[in-house]
């Protein structure tokens, strides 16, 4: 009976080659192989976002007059609504952290090398998309902090030469941040961005599977010199079980954070109230926020904001196209790691300074 059912399913779902491939897949094992779990962790948190996001949609109402009240309703009246919303907010933050850690590890282990250039490009685009998800989702509870942060955030687009005014109107859905902005960012957050993300995630995963895990150049060379193959771990069940263990820990962490530090709702946005003290974007935009504070009003007749955005834009393009301009010599790779580490340290320092300045504003 079971054999017949098995045959029936196999005939209709010809997944044999896929199952075979997964069964024979291995993952290299060396001292940096912890990095192989970071992408999976990001994917897991993305899954949590999709699940909790879909649940929130059942009660959320995307209009200026009802958004805040509907989130309040979710948090106070719907059973486990506080948990679902807190997990969505916490998981969003952990996902940004996991995605950044994933990118940094890929950079430091030089996994972007030929033939994985497109895997890198799709990954950087996915990180940008993750930040866009964060930005568009921040306003949705329609609270005071998010309202002003979105006003500042969207106003920054005005610094873009020529197209600035158009971009501001485009993101806000009008001249100012209003209910139209809320509806627009909601549409992006739940429809447009997920559509793009689905395609990019599929491409990214397909490329990762097609090329297999990259082995760091140092490990590769050592194995070659010693004349032995690189140790490896079967993907199924060894790697998968370890991955599942990590995911369970992440889930427990999310539940713990949500139970002990539930995400606050704040006060309802009032466009005619003065901006509250300590308004700031999410932590992952803080370093940028701090750079803008330091930028001179004008330099050589060019507005400071324009300079900052030109710098960020060039930096972004360099990161996106890294595999195409990075050299293959060892010295060069060491220099790249050094520069990247310095950049990360500066960003971390700026974030800490912004956090401390904000703490002072509250006292």
């Amino acid at each position, binding site marked *: 009976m079971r054999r017949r059912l098995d045959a029936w399913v196999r005939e209709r779902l010809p997944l044999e080659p896929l199952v075979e491939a997964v069964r024979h897949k291995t993952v290299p094992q060396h001292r940096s192989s912890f990095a192989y779990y970071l992408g999976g962790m990001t994917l897991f948190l993305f899954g949590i976002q999709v699940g909790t996001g879909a*649940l929130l949609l*059942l009660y959320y109402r995307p209009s200026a007059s009802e958004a805040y009240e509907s989130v309040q309703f979710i948090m106070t*009246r*719907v*059973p*486990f*609504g506080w*948990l*679902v919303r807190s997990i969505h907010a916490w998981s969003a933050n952990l996902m940004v952290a996991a995605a950044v850690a994933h990118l940094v590890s890929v950079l430091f282990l030089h996994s972007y090398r030929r033939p994985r250039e497109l895997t890198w490009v799709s990954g950087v685009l996915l990180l940008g998309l993750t930040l866009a998800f964060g930005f568009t989702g921040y306003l949705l509870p329609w609270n005071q902090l998010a309202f002003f942060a979105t006003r500042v955030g969207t106003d920054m687009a005005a610094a873009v030469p020529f197209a600035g005014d158009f971009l501001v109107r485009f993101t806000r859905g009008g001249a100012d941040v209003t209910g139209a902005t809320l509806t627009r960012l909601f549409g992006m957050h739940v429809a447009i961005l997920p559509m793009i993300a689905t395609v990019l995630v599929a491409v990214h995963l397909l490329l990762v599977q097609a090329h297999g895990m990259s082995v760091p150049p140092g490990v590769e060379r050592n194995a070659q010199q010693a004349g032995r193959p690189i140790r490896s771990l*079967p993907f*199924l*069940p060894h790697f998968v*079980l370890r991955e599942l263990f990590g995911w*369970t820990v992440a*889930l427990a962490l999310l*539940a713990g954070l949500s139970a002990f530090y539930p995400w606050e709702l704040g006060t309802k946005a009032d466009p005619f109230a003065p901006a509250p003290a300590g308004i700031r974007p999410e932590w992952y935009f803080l370093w940028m926020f701090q750079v803008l504070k330091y930028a001179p009003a004008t330099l050589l007749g060019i507005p400071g904001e324009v300079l900052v955005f030109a710098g960020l834009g060039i930096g972004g393009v360099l990161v996106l196209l890294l595999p195409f301009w990075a050299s293959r010599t060892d010295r060069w790779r060491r220099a790249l790691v050094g520069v990247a580490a310095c950049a990360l340290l500066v960003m971390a320092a700026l974030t800490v300074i912004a956090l401390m300045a904000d703490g002072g504003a509250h006292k």
Partner: protein
Amino acid sequence: MGDRVADTGPARRDVLNWLLGSWLVGVLGSILYPIARYLVPPELPEAAPPSVVAGKATALATNSGRIVAFGTAPVIVIRTPSGELCAFSATCTHLTCTVQYRPDLEHIWCACHNGHYDLNGRNIAGPPPRPLDRFDVTVQGEDIVIVRRT
């Protein structure tokens, strides 16, 4: 992979499988239970007021009806051909469409499935299974006031 761990004996494998199974059940349970509870909409206390004003008495002509909101539910107020005022729940007892007054028939009619109610709210033709709930009507000053029957 069966051959690789076969020498460690079935006992160890059983324990591991049992542990993995309980882990899976625990994790799935702690995810699915909150989701199941979340999906069931919370009970909202009915905010229906004890009485509502249904407009001016003089504005409701003989042999006509008017639908007013009683909390979140529609109520139909009718001035009968003989000039009396009466009020019923406007929710059809068949499949909850909103009923209307038909001056030509001189009774209440539901357009969805051709249900008919007389001026006492009784279901007299078509599919409605029960009469409409009746409301009390009084005139206070110029206003028609309708009150839910307890």
